[in-house]
């Protein structure tokens, strides 16, 4: 998105709004800075005056098996659910823009609706389902729920891109003898690839940080947010937990920034 500077907006000076932005950013980062400071203290107390700082908690991340396995669980659920959601949401996007059929609006509405259902409601509803059919809670049950809540995001991102693709390209491919599935895979998907990447990453970040659903559905193998929550009452565990979260955040951030680069290169 490029914003041209013109005779637009109120006044010319960027000082008042720039100051507002700076103050707000500072307020957003203060709690994060406190977290970071916390991860550098020993023993979990953060009160004035500050004690000596150390990187111990970052080292002990690697020696905590439960912590590492919860992070691994989150990665598994994230990859699985965002892959499923990307595939399913893209199918709905194609159905929405390339077909006309009875019940089309209903299907699209159904795929968008998870966006307005409060997570606590969906969480307990899924819990009722899994109990009713006697399915034990696992990473699968968390993943199923995460895929449902990610489908609307995928649909919106992919449909926006597909909307700009000329349907005549598909007709040309089919005139040249390609079946429709082949046309989708070899013509349409490559064109909308940047949107697919961006949809997948959005779904992944939604799943990776999701707690409200996962608390109900995780069962014996917690995802990272669920594990984090279970440990929050032990103040002494804090620095290690935050250290882990900081490391995960750096990873996510790198992923997002790299993907953004890829998306720009292609477009």
């Amino acid at each position, binding site marked *: 998105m490029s914003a041209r500077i013109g005779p637009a907006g109120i006044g010319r000076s960027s000082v008042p709004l720039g100051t507002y932005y700076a103050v707000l950013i500072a307020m957003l980062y203060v709690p994060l800075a406190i977290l970071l400071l916390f991860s550098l203290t020993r023993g979990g107390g953060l009160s*004035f005056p500050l004690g000596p700082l150390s990187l111990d908690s970052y080292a002990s991340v690697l020696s905590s098996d439960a912590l590492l396995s919860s992070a691994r669980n989150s990665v598994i659920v994230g990859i699985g659910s965002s892959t499923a959601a990307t595939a*399913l949401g893209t199918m709905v996007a194609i159905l929405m823009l390339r077909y006309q059929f009875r019940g089309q609006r209903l299907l699209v509405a159904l795929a968008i609706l998870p966006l307005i259902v*409060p997570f606590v409601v969906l969480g307990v509803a899924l819990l*009722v389902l899994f109990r009713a059919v006697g399915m034990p809670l696992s990473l699968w049950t968390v993943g199923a729920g995460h*895929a449902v809540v990610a489908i609307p995001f995928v649909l919106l991102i992919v449909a926006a891109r597909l909307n700009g693709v000329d349907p005549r390209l598909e007709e040309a491919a089919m005139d040249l003898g390609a079946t*429709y599935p082949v046309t989708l895979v070899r013509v349409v998907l490559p064109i909308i690839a940047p949107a697919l990447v961006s949809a997948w990453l959005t779904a992944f970040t939604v799943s990776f940080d999701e707690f409200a659903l996962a608390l109900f559905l995780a069962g014996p193998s917690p995802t990272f947010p669920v594990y984090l929550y279970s440990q929050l009452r032990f103040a002494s565990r804090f620095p290690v937990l935050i250290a882990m979260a900081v490391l995960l955040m750096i990873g996510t951030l790198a992923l997002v920034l790299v993907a953004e680069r890829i998306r720009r290169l292609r477009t």
Partner: protein
Amino acid sequence: MLGRRSTFWLLTIPPLLWLLLFFVAPVILMGLMSVREDVGRSFFNFPKPTLDQYGIVLEETSYLRLLGLSAFMALVVGVVATALAFPIAYFLTFRAGERANFYLILLLIPFWTSYLLRVMAWKLMLGSEGVVNSFLVWTGAIHSPLEFLLYNRGTVIVTLVYVWIPFAVLPIYAAMARIDRPLLEAAADLGAGPWPRFWRVTLPLAMPGAVAAFFMVFIPTIGEYVTPLLVGGSSGSMYGNLIQDFFTKSADLPLGSALAVVMLAVTIALVAIAARLINVRRFAAL
């Protein structure tokens, strides 16, 4: 050969099945659970349906009052977060110039930080042994920690606003960035000063984004239970905590389901009314 027509089912069945299994079926089963007297031994051994649970929801006035209060809190959080986000979107669109993307990413980094930890950070700041209190005691400004900083509705609202501001900027920024600059130039040529241009051109065109931002904050907030759990204490709990309690602590699934059905109905009704009020078509055209 597989044409468009025969591909149709290939594309329809997977998403339809998934949504029916993991979205529609759970909601229906939850509805069925809410008209049961108790959980019983097997779910599929249907007893005679009863509306007792809904009777309890209506009779126990504190439940519905908490729902009203949660809707009110969501309203406050939505309005405040949108209002605080609006000038940021304006800054990014009209003032930041080429560095807009950098400023946007700087704004979004907190949003990519663990939600639980961002909420926890407020507990660390406001708790009786937290940063604020220990700092004030250390400087001698106060003698004993201030207890009112944490565990009440105000703290929940402040924390939620903090959590949602970066997210609220996005739809407003998207709407503003699409405003045609020639429109503003035309308004200027026709003699409109900066403020009339803002009130009569920029604001109306950015409004759909602001409304979208409000709802993107309001909807998750009305069903919120995590933030009250961490910084709300017993006096700051929300309707979502009630539902969560019935499914975990007291394991009264039928009553919990009835409460969840009420919450779902209220949320969908509010969104439907809003969609009617703000003319969705005009939005889509923008």
